């Protein structure tokens, strides 16, 4: 479920890549990405609206595999 202002979309391939998921969880300054014990990606929905639009997630993942959507545009 998206936030009120921000949504994040991650490609299936990136979401299944434990190394990419670990990187996403590491770089996000507001903890939108988390990695479950099995290595799977979990989007922390309550943090979506805290997104500071830093684009670090998009830089950390393969090109075009992460999209930050501004729901107000």
């Amino acid at each position: 479920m998206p936030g009120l202002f921000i949504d994040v979309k991650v490609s299936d391939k990136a979401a299944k890549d434990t190394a990419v998921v670990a990187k996403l969880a590491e770089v996000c300054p507001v903890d939108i990405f988390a990695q479950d014990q099995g290595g799977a990606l979990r989007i922390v929905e309550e943090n979506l609206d805290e997104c500071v639009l830093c684009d670090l997630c998009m830089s950390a993942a393969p090109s075009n595999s992460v999209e930050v959507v501004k729901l107000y545009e």
Partner: protein
Amino acid sequence: MRFYEYESKALFARHGLPLGQSGVADSAVHAREIAHRIGRPVVLKSQVLSGGRMKAGAVKFADTPDEAAQIYDEIFPIIVGGQKARSILVEEKSPIAQEYYAGVTWDGRRKLPVLIFSDMGGIDIEEVAEQHPDHVSKTHFSTILPVTPRIAKEAIAATGVTGGALNKLTPIVSKLIDIFLEYDLTLAEINPLVRLEDGRFVVLDGHVDMEAEARDQHAKLLKELGIGPEETRQARPPTDFEIRGAEVDASDHRGVAGNVVEFDGNLGLIIGAGGGSLTLFDAVRSQGGHPANYCEIGGNPSVNKTCELTKLVLSKPGVEKIAVMMNVVSNTRVDIVARGVIKGCIEAGKDPSETIAIFRIPGAWEEEGFKILAKHKVDYCDRSVSMYDAAGRAVAKMKSA
């Protein structure tokens, strides 16, 4: 944060300022013991954080220990300025030859500390300054350059004090400056500083205010003086609204949002930035508005923190609208605050376009913020609208509602 007289004197004593024999009594028996130990006539002074003790009858003299015990029971219940006594200071009675005033505070206009000295102490310094200006000196000094006793000496001499009195007063007043600077005080005052009939100089009454933001820095001193972290030393106890605001602020380390003071108006305020809170609060009142609260936000609070603050303000009975206004921001992001207040309105079950009377926060990420506000049909303005005019727009909406 104001100190009780006995705490002020304990601080002065650490720096070697001359004080009379004294003790803090918490019972009539204790007052008798202290008076007996002093072995001379004493003065008993109610320990409250307000002036007007003498007029209220909460300062009295006793010639004997038994009389001291009796007077303790008389003055302890007296309410002074709405405050109950914490304890009674029992101090030796001093035969006074002359009274002086010495105070150090900040001059907001000059942005410098100022030493105020008068050879007419014992009464309000404002009254002396008005009626006998030649008996009051004001000496500004730097917080960068070394503070030397010369500053005190010149200030004292400027009121006509000379000779032995000048030489004896100088180190006392110079130490008062040192105390003011060392402990981040907003006021260090001795009134009166007296010359006794035997020629000695003694601090008879003292008043110290510490900058509230400096409490953590001086935690060791405060602990040693017995001032607990729970003691706010404000004019009144915090309201539930204010306590909940503090909880919101403490819930997240990011930024400031929750330092609120409750008022009885109907316009909720989310305001801040570089002195903007006070300016905006005054602007609302000046435009005929009635603030429901004072508030400080800044330092880029999180969306959630701003959201919770917004819900808190909107939870106040009678508050239907809020004004979200700041000075031009640099380290606080406009879009983050916009998200927080809109989310707060929605979570409070209110329409942001109807509830936010005005959003006036120009600065960092304002283009992004304005997109969010436009999407939710919130009335906003940029820096071309002054804070005063923005407050006026909010007040006008309240009046037309």
